[in-house]
């Protein structure tokens, strides 16, 4: 075990990642596979190695961070089809030495299958994203604890629709777990037919974090 810890430490890992079955684990995002394949071809190039050209930033670590939030219970009570969803990305795995160069939020809205079948595309939704600056105490006005980040109308079709947003400075603050309250996403239907039952779209969110570990991505001195 101590020897393994030494090896893992050399790879920048504090401990051996979960050693369970791989079944049920999330798929590798295709974009990450593409970057991996490209890195296999250009790995001899030191300068290239410390830059992620796909995102146009420096870095040697790309993390696809899963959303650990969920639908806020009772949020659908406000109106038919209304959904409030908490988005939470745990960035505690970033080492203190790492420099975060990019955090890109991806939100994918998937129309409910039943609605998509009926309408070809779902109804237009108002999607409003807030950052949560502190937890809401019982009885307090929740609007006081959030700051508007994005307000957009989306109309997810059968294939869904995606919104991408740079949240680098915000994600920098999330590196301290005590200051990470996540995001709040409010979905409201804009043009639903009141005679037609409406199902809220499902939301998939992920965060791409690109960082650079200076000790593991040093510039090589040129030899004469």
């Amino acid at each position: 075990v101590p020897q393994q810890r030494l090896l893992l430490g050399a790879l920048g890992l504090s401990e051996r990642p979960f050693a369970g079955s791989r079944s049920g684990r999330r798929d590798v995002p295709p974009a990450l596979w593409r970057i991996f394949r490209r890195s296999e071809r250009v790995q001899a190039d030191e300068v290239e190695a410390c830059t992620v050209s796909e995102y146009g930033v420096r870095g040697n670590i790309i993390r696809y961070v899963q959303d650990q939030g969920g639908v806020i219970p009772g949020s659908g009570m406000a109106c038919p089809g209304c959904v409030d969803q908490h988005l939470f990305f745990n960035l505690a795995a970033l080492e203190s030495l790492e420099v975060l160069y990019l955090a890109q939020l991806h939100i994918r809205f998937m129309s409910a299958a039943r609605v998509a079948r009926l309408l070809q595309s779902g109804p237009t939704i108002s999607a409003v994203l807030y950052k949560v600056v502190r937890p809401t105490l019982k009885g307090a006005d929740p609007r006081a604890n959030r700051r508007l980040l994005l307000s957009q109308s989306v109309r997810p079709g059968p294939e869904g629709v995606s919104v991408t947003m740079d949240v680098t400075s915000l994600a920098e603050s999330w590196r301290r777990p005590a200051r990470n309250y996540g995001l709040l996403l409010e979905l409201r239907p804009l043009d639903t037919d009141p005679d037609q039952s409406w199902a809220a779209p499902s939301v998939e969110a992920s965060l791409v974090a690109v960082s650079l570990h200076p000790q593991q991505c040093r510039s090589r001195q040129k030899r004469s």
Partner: protein
Amino acid sequence: ATHSQPPVSPSNVCKARRLYVDFKDVGWQDWIIAPQGYMANYCHGECPFPLSDSLNSTNHAILQTLVHSLDPGSTPQPCCVPVRFSPISMLYYDNNDNVVLRHYQDMVVDECGCR
């Protein structure tokens, strides 16, 4: 003193040898997605007197082999060590089940030398 030592055949001279590291062998296959293994290589061999240019030697190593040739008992030969590496990328799951692509330097031994 040099005449008393057996000659070093080319196969014993310091150079990079093939070593394939299979992550299954070290029990890491559960969390490393790709690659499943890679050609890491290693350095092995002697650094005999006189050191040739092909052995990537330092000035210090040249002098050390000279001293060793005069008095093998007191001074060892220089060490055969990696002098040039190349990086690899690894795709793996972390403890939160996130997918991570990380670039690691100094993972493959490309060249060895006497140092």
